[in-house]
């Protein structure tokens, strides 16, 4: 493949219709049907393994998921007919698989059923998806609301400080019996703001200051906003004890800064600030310090005679799965205890689906991210490019932070596995991300000019 991005312009005489991309809505529909069938199969497999019978709700579950997916598909057909055909099926498959895993874990905790609530939230998520696809005709409209977005994001981030902390983290608010994690919604709003801000100011930001060894350092006057974001991240961390979200915000900002300006100096600066922040917080904040200790010595609590901690149980779960897994419904990931359905949901996937299933899930996320980046590559407007890159990066960073955390690769930080984990705010947010990706990919493929195949 040639470096298409470096070609100056497409041949001017190429008629647009000649290179019009196929819409592939039929493929999307077929993939959705496949995704729904896979999820129903998983649901039945759980019931067969546990009780020897197909669970009574299988038909209803399949029909519910199918109807939701079909409505989303119709919305896409109606208003984003050129959109990437892979995005929606991946969303449906991951969400459906998450429901299966949560339903499976519900069997171990009869007093605490999470699957029905998760199904309600999934419905809300798909509804939001449909609303976004129907109402947002052009992603560039969002550019106008950049500062509204950042203001809303800051409000959402600060709201939980007014509420009591839950399990050591101050990231939830309670409204009418529902726990909501406003930080989840803030992610999308911040991505919109970052994209808009950087698209508007990228030339100023890209003005390189001094060159130091191989790094191109940014000039001093553009450091302000960067430091502001860094402070917000640290603030989130210190006030809400939410290491994962702060890491995500900061990582997102650094990636978008780099994509907007191409200055390697930003990366160096970002890593430096992150290191300073992490060190300071790790030193000051016992909560974070413990997480690092657990990561370095996951079995320390066993040696101390206190039994395995959550991370050790999570590693046991993954190990028990081996290459092919125990089969759905046959593992013991419930031993993880608290948060087995949310932060540690991946351990259940790892144990019951094995390395094979886990790799498939990782690759699904990889594919989702790749489709996002590809839409970004083929768009023409900087805002759209940055928005698509930002949304895809959110998914990528989030998957890495939590999957790496529960797998012992990096210190564990509380965060929801996109689509899979129990958590209404998360699943709604992820449907919003997919909706926005559908929108930008629709634009990208509609304005395809032959230079960059989306």
């Amino acid at each position, binding site marked *: 493949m040639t470096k298409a*991005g470096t*070609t100056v312009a497409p041949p001017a005489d190429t008629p647009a219709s000649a290179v019009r991309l196929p819409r592939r809505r039929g493929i999307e529909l077929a993939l959705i049907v496949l995704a729904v069938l896979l999820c129903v199969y998983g649901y039945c497999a759980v019931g067969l393994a546990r009780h020897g019978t197909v669970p009574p709700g299988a038909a209803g579950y399949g029909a519910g998921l199918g109807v939701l997916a079909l409505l989303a598909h119709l919305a896409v057909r109606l208003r984003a007919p050129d959109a990437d055909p892979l995005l929606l099926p991946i969303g449906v498959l991951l969400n459906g698989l998450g429901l299966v895993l949560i339903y499976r874990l519900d069997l171990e905790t009869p007093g605490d059923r999470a699957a029905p609530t998760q199904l309600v939230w999934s419905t809300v998520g798909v509804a939001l998806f449909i609303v976004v696809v129907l109402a947002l005709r052009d992603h560039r409209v969002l550019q106008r609301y950049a500062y509204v977005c950042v203001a809303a994001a800051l409000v959402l981030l600060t709201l939980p400080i007014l509420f009591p902390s839950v399990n050591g983290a101050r990231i939830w608010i309670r409204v009418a019996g529902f726990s909501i994690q406003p930080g989840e919604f803030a992610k999308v709003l911040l991505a919109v703001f970052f994209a808009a801000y950087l698209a508007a100011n990228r030339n100023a930001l890209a003005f390189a200051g001094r060159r130091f060894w191989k790094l191109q350092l940014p000039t001093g006057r553009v450091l302000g906003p960067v430091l502001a974001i860094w402070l917000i991240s640290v603030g989130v961390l210190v006030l809400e004890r939410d290491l994962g979200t702060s890491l995500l915000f900061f990582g997102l900002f650094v990636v978008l800064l780099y994509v*907007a300006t191409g200055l390697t100096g930003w990366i160096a600066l970002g890593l430096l600030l992150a290191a300073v922040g992490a060190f300071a917080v790790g030193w000051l904040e016992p909560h974070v310090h413990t997480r690092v200790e657990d990561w370095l010595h996951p079995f320390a609590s066993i040696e101390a005679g206190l039994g395995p901690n959550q991370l050790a149980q999570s590693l046991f779960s993954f190990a028990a799965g081996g290459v092919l897994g125990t089969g759905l419904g046959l593992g*013991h990931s419930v*031993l993880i205890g608290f948060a087995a359905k949310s932060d540690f949901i991946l351990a259940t996937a790892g144990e019951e689906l094995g390395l094979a299933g886990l790799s498939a899930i990782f690759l699904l*996320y990889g594919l989702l*991210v790749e489709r996002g980046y590809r839409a970004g590559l083929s768009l023409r407007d900087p805002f759209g490019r940055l928005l698509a890159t930002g949304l895809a990066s959110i998914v990528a960073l989030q998957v890495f932070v939590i999957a790496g955390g529960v797998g012992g690769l990096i210190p564990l930080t509380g965060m929801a596995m996109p689509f899979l984990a129990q958590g209404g705010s998360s699943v709604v947010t992820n449907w919003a991300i997919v909706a926005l990706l559908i929108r930008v990919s629709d634009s990208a493929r509609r304005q395809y000019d032959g230079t960059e195949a989306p």
Partner: protein
Amino acid sequence: MSTHGPGMARYIRHAACFCALLLVALLVNATRVQVFEAAAHDENPANRREVIARYGLRRGDILVDGRPVTGSRDTGEQLRYERTYANGPLFAPVTGFASQEYGTTLLEHTEDGVLSGSDPLLTPFALWNDFTRRRNPGGDVVTTIDGAAQQAAFRGLAGRKGAVAAVEPTTGRILALVSSPSYDPEVLSGNDPGVGRSWARLNADREKPMLNRAVRQTYPPGSTFKVVTAAAALDAGVVTDLDAPTDSPAPYRLPGTRTSLTNESDGCEDLSLREAFRWSCNTVFAKLGVDVGVGDMTATAHAFGFNDDALRIPFSVARSTFDPTVDKAQLALSSIGQYNTRATPLQMAMVSAAVANGGQLRTPYLVERTTTSRGTTVATAGPRPGRQVMYPSTAAQLRELMTQVVTEGTGTNAAIPGATVGGKTGTAQHGIGNAGTPYAWFVSWAQGDRDVEPKVAVAVVVEDAAADRGEITGGGVAAPIARAVMEAVLRSKE
């Protein structure tokens, strides 16, 4: 037309490459945990999965007379199946316990592979099972125990401290293994707080109900050891005629000491072996032991199974001892079952069995065969190789001596109409200055009049036989129990 610089696409590619790196890192990490470190994690003792799997299946059963004496109860808990025992105290010395908290003992321990289903012999497709993660249902263990004999022995002891071991002389099959007082292993099965309390209570009990006295406790065998001494004397040629005088004084001064050994009864001086055996004369056998010498005495004791700590039936049996490093005075005492001579009840049953079986000792065993849950045989014990302990002529002479003990000696309480019974009583003093209540012993064998070979050999010991001292205890307390066991075996063989 293009509003963006050519660079941005490149940077997006760089960002995408970065994400690809993250993806690779996750995949490599998953492989590390799930493949390379999986075995170590699986074997971590803090990992409950192995335990959950172990108790996730119904445990195989231990069978007596073709009927299970164990069972499994589905609790629906995380450790799903708990052990139950149909007649716990009766069979506890055979089965042991299978506790979720405190592990396993005896047959539950040595046969755990079959019972829990982890034995690879249970399936012809072990590799396929590894692949599908299927666990075999637990297999069954068929014992050699004769339920009626076991019952008779347990009833005979009637809660008194003691033990009974019975074997089939021609094969080595263990027909009864009873220890009293006993306990119900079921109280240790689950993992509720009551189990911990039962464990503490059983361990603190001064009567030691969890001690398997039939195989794990050694006693001074006292006069029953005279069977061994007589065998040694006959084999060594020290005595060639059962009815010839043995040239032994009474009381007998222990060589090299001023201590004199006396007898319970008078008239032992210079008695023949036949009479001395019938009346259990200490002086005669002490002198015979010294005449045989420590080398031959030790060799004969060895042949009977003394000083052997490798015996497994399949669980281990405590080592019965005959001290080979003794002077003549100690040898004299050792030869009448005192000093450092100690024996398990099973060991004394083996002594009796060897005599009954023409001098050939069959290694005792408790497991007839193991089967899969469907009854297919996995392994059979089969008769063990025997070893010749004494000349067949010596055995014949000893049979004669032992028979006389029952017909007209100290063991008349063991006589069974319609059967030839041989026996030997014993009373073993113990404690400092012999202050403890003596142990009452009786070893015997029986052969029905229509049988071509002996059917059963028994050893009975009763610890606190609160009766008068003397031969009366062995014959009075232990012999009726032995008779009940022998009768049960003879009856069930008909």
